[in-house]
């Protein structure tokens, strides 16, 4: 029995510890998807929070062996809802929102700068490209799992990743980043 499967089965029985472990194990991937689709940290956190609660409510419908992909589908749907809501807001209002929230001031200046540069570059990618890039290069997901999660072929997932990296490198020369990366 896989760890995730065991955690899902225990969480179904109301085991809070198991659910917390499930949240910790999948938070980063869920956040990555939420971040890629909403474009900012605050909405990403809201989307992930809603996603996990929705997942808990519907946990009986989930195949425990496919929890990760199932969770990301929920997060993706919540993110789409947020984006639709965002579209009715004015662009000026969006610009007023600090993307990282109040805690951002706590981050170091260099990290802050890396984020700012990366965020600007990432914003030029499509939501699918962002999601695939983050899931693969940050979360270490395999092409097969990404393709399954996004209901596309593995070849298509690879193509999106290739295009995303290419575009990001054009926008973000590695020499510039080396100044900030450890």
């Amino acid at each position, binding site marked *: 029995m896989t760890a995730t499967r065991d955690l899902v089965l225990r*969480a179904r029985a*109301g085991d*809070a510890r198991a*659910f917390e472990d499930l*949240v910790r194990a999948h938070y980063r991937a869920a956040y990555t998807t939420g*971040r890629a689709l909403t474009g900012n940290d605050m909405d990403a956190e809201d989307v*992930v*929070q809603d996603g996990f609660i929705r997942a808990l409510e519907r946990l009986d419908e989930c195949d425990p062996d496919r929890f990760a992909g199932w969770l990301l589908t929920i997060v993706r749907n919540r993110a789409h809802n947020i984006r639709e809501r965002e579209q009715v807001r004015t662009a000026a209002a969006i610009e007023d929102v600090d993307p990282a929230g109040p805690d951002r001031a706590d981050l170091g200046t260099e990290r802050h700068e890396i984020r700012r540069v*990366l965020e600007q570059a990432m914003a030029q990618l499509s939501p699918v490209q962002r999601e695939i890039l983050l899931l693969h290069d940050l979360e270490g997901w395999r092409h097969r799992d990404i393709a399954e999660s996004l209901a596309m072929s593995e070849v298509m997932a690879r193509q999106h990743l290739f295009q995303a990296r290419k575009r990001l490198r054009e926008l973000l020369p590695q020499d510039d980043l080396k100044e900030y990366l450890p």
Partner: protein
Amino acid sequence: MNDDPMDLRAFDPARDPVRYERAIGRIMDRAALPLAARRARVTTMGQITTWWRPMLALAAALTLAAVGVLTQVRPAVAATDGADAGVAEALGIPTALVTWMGAAETPTAAQVFSALEEAQ
């Protein structure tokens, strides 16, 4: 073309531990109620499951006891077959017909008509 993975650690939500823990905490706060509901449901189902086997055993025992009682009572009822004639008479059924019902031989039509006429 360089297609190596890119360093995107700047987007790792766990890089800010305080914010990360607060986010996990908020999820767990909201999850408390649904988790409690799940525990309650499991407890109810568990009680039913716990009681199900003893109840089944008790039902089986009662069934066996009932069969035993019925087996003992049946001969006693058979012994009072004579009472059937009295009941039949009270209902207006000729005694001869009741006798034939318990007998192995089948009466002829003439015998049945004769018995019915006698009863009237």
